[in-house]
């Protein structure tokens, strides 16, 4: 069970309560972008976009990295956690299936060996 504190819920809610910020998430879902790119896409000043990105960053929805003069934004760890948690559950389902399949396969294997011996006898 994943638990969320009220503070974290509030941060997440306010982060996505704004249409521009939802647009930024959608845009970053397609490809990483610099703050300048985002400001242009959404017809905003650099300062305005920095504020929006800051809100998304605090909610863990976006991370930024400065390389040289350019600050690049990408979707944050929240998304990665969600995906890797899902993949792990999916792996567990298949691991559980395959462990039972092992038993079926072992039984068939044993049977085949016994039948093989009988034929030779």
């Amino acid at each position, binding site marked *: 069970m994943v638990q969320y504190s009220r503070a974290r819920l509030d941060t997440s809610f306010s982060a996505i309560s704004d249409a521009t910020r*939802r647009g930024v998430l959608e845009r970053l879902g*397609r490809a990483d972008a610099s703050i300048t790119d985002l400001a242009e896409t959404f017809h905003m000043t650099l300062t305005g976009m920095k504020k929006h990105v800051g809100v998304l960053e605090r909610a863990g929805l976006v991370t930024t990295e400065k390389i040289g003069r350019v600050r690049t934004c990408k979707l944050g760890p929240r998304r990665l956690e969600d*995906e890797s948690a899902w993949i792990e559950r999916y792996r567990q389902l298949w691991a559980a*299936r*395959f*462990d039972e399949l092992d038993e079926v*396969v072992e039984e*068939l294997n044993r049977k*085949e060996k016994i039948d093989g011996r009988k034929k030779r006898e």
Partner: protein
Amino acid sequence: MDARKENEPTSRKNRTTVERKSERELVVTRTFNAPARIVFEAWTKPELLKRWWAPKSMDMSLLTCEVDARAGGRYRFVFGFAHDASQTMAFFGKYLEVTPHSRLVWTNDEQGEGKESITTVTFEEKEGKTLLVMREVHPSKESLDDLAAGEATHETFDQLDELLVTLGQSGPHAAAAPTPGACS
């Protein structure tokens, strides 16, 4: 001295891996200690599939298991849940290719027309063991994301998370309907 880590498989069991290879593709691998013809048989005979497709530890039971494993043949699995007998999930589709002991290809049709995913299972025998590779290709990035989002929200995540996952992964389209793909 047994210094084995908790999360390592027990000595007898082989490791199952799952990897998202691309936006639309998921790959599951596992080795079995038996020749390919035996593993293949267990994947194509309904009376054998029934014994492992709904693992006891996952709280599922198989109510229906109809399998006509030949090219053009259809399959249909219906699962029930131990904790809630009124809930069932159906998975169905068509075999596109059945090559004895080496390859199975089928479609997953429960998402509707034009949204079929395709699963290819290969059985590769080496020194009496079989490497199984299962490759699921979804029709779009969104289809696989929805499956992940639907699964992630199952029981553990609340509606906010569903919204965040949907927004974060595939843009502001409608939140994913619960998809039963985990068992496909």
